[in-house]
């Protein structure tokens, strides 16, 4: 496996633009691609957030009075699709995976740099296509789940564009997954053993396995759905003898693992951030690795818990209840190990740590409601209600998005060579944490008391709680302002960070900030103890051999 581009070769270097222009080019540098993913994802996050704002404005009153009902369904469909496929999945996998994995395995680039660039450049056009469908003939309006027969009977143009766009994004995700597996398994620096890799590598290995196993199933399903729409086949059309339940099984076979595709990399990132700022080794490395793999295996056999009120026989309900509940065991191990990493450390209370601890708190709540939702008798009341909306926002926003912010505060000095402003960062955290909990905690009550999800109008008794929730959404929207200001201001006028402001031991910090195209001048360092904090310093020096 020596396909990797050799950036030290002057002829290949000449093909690549330098300076800021390279971020708009078909660059093969994994660091450029990583930042392309991050910035592109963040732009889509702002768009998806604006759509969320529109939803919350509509829900401040019980009547459907802010936008037409068809538009409301388009907005909620676009919001879900953008946040999942254009923000969280590309950023936790594409952005941080691409930037960090080659450093962590001691390589100069990913295994397949061209495939890597193709994977990124599939994202902006498919995202633009998805959003522009709104202006053509109305976007898809059947939710991000696109359940037939609704997806077959709503206007076809928007739904077909939605399918094409998700297919392209799924393709991008598969390319990325193959690349990560190949890089982690085949491009490791000689002498570096698997069990010496930083935890993020294991998280990306597990995630990429899920991507490669489950995404093709979604692709196949959506192709069949598009046949039903354009060629009037009857795979999922009950009027032509099709079965709508089969679609749900196929869809969730991908879309439940998709949750782990969004949170496992986040777990990996937190495992990198906590030890650095706590000055302690990651607690329980081996059990962390096993629990990632446990989550991968279990994550593939729990999909039907999304279908407890659908057409499912009792035995199936019981099996998926048990399988789903047991995911809490490996997940619980990870959380206890993180808390044990905090314990006895010397913790810098900076923005990176605050967002990571915010993640732990939010995710524990999301996990508890998740175990409750896994119980069939509990789920039959709250399924498809705001309780579920609250639950999964605690997982994907309180979980993944908090980790994305934590990671930006942690790696911004590496990306740019500049420090972010810590006071603004802590202010950003406070606004985000309060806004997020104000927005989503009350939604548990809404669901328990009878408010279904995906509605533009609701029972007037829920008005006050919905307004509280919308206030939280407003705070969340405002919280992006200090963040954006901080990023732009620090990128141009920030304090110089030096090469390793956190005194971190993982390999990406053992080079200049920002790193050279070839990652290290000279040979890649062999880091066999990426978490060796608190150990004898001279011993430490000898372990990072050149």
């Amino acid at each position: 496996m020596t396909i990797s581009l050799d950036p030290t070769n002057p002829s290949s270097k000449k093909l690549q633009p330098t300076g800021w222009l390279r971020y708009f080019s078909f660059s093969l540098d994994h660091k450029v691609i990583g930042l392309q993913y991050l910035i592109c994802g963040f732009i889509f996050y702002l768009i998806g957030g604006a759509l969320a704002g529109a939803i919350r404005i509509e829900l401040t009153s019980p009547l459907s009075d802010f936008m037409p009902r068809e538009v409301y369904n388009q907005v909620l469909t676009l919001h879900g699709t953008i946040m999942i496929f254009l923000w969280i999945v590309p950023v936790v996998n594409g952005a941080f995976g691409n930037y960090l994995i080659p450093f962590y395995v001691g390589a100069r680039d990913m295994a397949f740099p061209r495939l890597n660039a193709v994977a990124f450049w599939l994202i902006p056009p498919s995202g633009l296509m998805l959003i522009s469908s709104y202006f053509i003939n109305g976007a898809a309006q059947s939710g991000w789940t696109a359940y037939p027969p609704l997806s077959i009977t709503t206007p076809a143009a928007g739904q077909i564009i939605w399918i094409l766009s998700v297919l392209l994004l799924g393709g991008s995700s598969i390319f990325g997954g193959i690349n990560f597996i190949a890089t982690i398994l085949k491009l490791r620096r000689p002498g570096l053993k698997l069990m010496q890799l930083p935890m993020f590598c294991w998280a990306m290995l597990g995630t990429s396995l899920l991507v490669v196993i489950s995404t093709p199933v979604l692709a196949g399903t959506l192709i069949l759905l598009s046949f039903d729409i354009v060629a009037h086949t009857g795979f999922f059309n009950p009027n032509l003898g099709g079965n709508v339940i089969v679609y749900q099984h196929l869809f969730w076979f991908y879309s439940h693992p998709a949750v782990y595709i969004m949170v496992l990399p986040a777990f990996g990132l937190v495992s990198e951030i906590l030890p650095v700022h706590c000055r302690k080794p990651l607690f329980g490395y081996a059990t962390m690795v096993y629990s990632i793999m446990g989550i991968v295996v279990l994550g593939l056999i729990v999909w039907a818990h999304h279908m407890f009120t659908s057409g499912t026989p009792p035995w199936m309900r019981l099996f998926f209840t048990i399988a789903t509940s047991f995911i809490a065991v490996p997940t619980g191990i990870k959380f206890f190990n993180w808390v044990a990493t905090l314990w006895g450390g010397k913790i810098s209370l900076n923005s990176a740590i605050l967002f990571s601890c915010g993640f732990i708190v939010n995710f524990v709540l999301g996990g508890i409601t998740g175990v409750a939702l896994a119980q069939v008798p509990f789920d039959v009341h709250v399924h498809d209600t705001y309780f579920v909306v609250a639950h999964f926002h605690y997982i994907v926003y309180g979980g993944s998005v908090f980790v994305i912010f934590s990671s930006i505060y942690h790696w911004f000095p590496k990306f740019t060579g500049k420090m972010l402003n810590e006071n603004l960062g802590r202010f950003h955290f406070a606004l985000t944490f309060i806004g997020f909990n104000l927005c989503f905690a009350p939604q548990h009550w809404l669901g328990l008391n009878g408010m279904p999800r995906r509605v533009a109008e609701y029972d007037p008794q829920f008005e006050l709680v919905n307004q509280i929730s919308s206030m939280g959404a407003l705070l969340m929207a405002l919280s992006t302002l200090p963040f954006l200001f901080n990023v732009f201001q620090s990128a141009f006028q920030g304090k110089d960070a030096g090469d390793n402001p956190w005194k971190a031991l993982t390999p990406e910090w053992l080079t200049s900030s920002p790193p050279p195209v070839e990652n290290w001048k000279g040979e890649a360092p062999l880091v066999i103890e990426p978490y060796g904090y608190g150990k004898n310093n001279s011993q430490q020096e000898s372990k990072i051999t050149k």
Partner: protein
Amino acid sequence: MGSSVPKTSAILTLIISISLAVLGVWIAYNIKMLPIEASQNSPVYDELFKVLFIIGTILFIGMVAIVLYSLFQFRRRAGDEGDGIPLEGNISLEIFWTAIPAIVILFVGLYSYDIYDRMGGMSPLMHHENSSNSNPLDQKIWGGIGSDSIESSNTDNSMVLPIELTAMQFAFIFHYPKGDIITGELHVPVGKKVSLKMESKDVIHAFWVPQFRLKQDVIPGQPTVLNFTPTKAGTYPIVCAELCGPYHGGMRSNVIVDELNEYDNWFQQNAKETI
């Protein structure tokens, strides 16, 4: 951690978290977090909710307390540039916190199986209609829970009220085979087991009565069954819980639970055939 300061803060954290956990238990028993109970299913559901709420509260408060305590206790003091203790793991601790969630999960799983059984989830689904056996579609009926098992053992068909539900964009239509009544609002008597056979004409809908704690999708081409026994007279909302189109939020109806004699009056007034 030998000094007296960490001990005080540890004891303080412990006391605060225990009192918060007690508060959580008190809330579970005294604050109404769910709508009123109007079916045989509801008190069973609320018992499960209470247990899950208490376990969840204790776990959540415990985790938050440990995180906050660590952030406070182990914060970096000004001028301290050193590292923490180089603790890489502890096998017995890790076995301990693998076992604890496993035991909790096992308990929750067994308990919710018991709840599910008491709700009637494990009893065979059947729609109590005499002519239904000839219909081949009935062979593949899937669906709901709520065929209360305590009752179903000594139930014969005359004790059960069969009703057919047809869902369409954006309405529920109920048909009473006995009196050939067609209505947009569901009328049922208190204390009588109702068996809903549901099918959709167009897209997937869902039949949800929050006060009954029951929900079942209504699916085109795939009949589903939901059995329940109302216990409290009143008017409760029927809510569509599956995105079904632009007017999904407006797809609502009512279930009117009447005392038996009032229900009989309504039935006599609306029945097309005498029984």
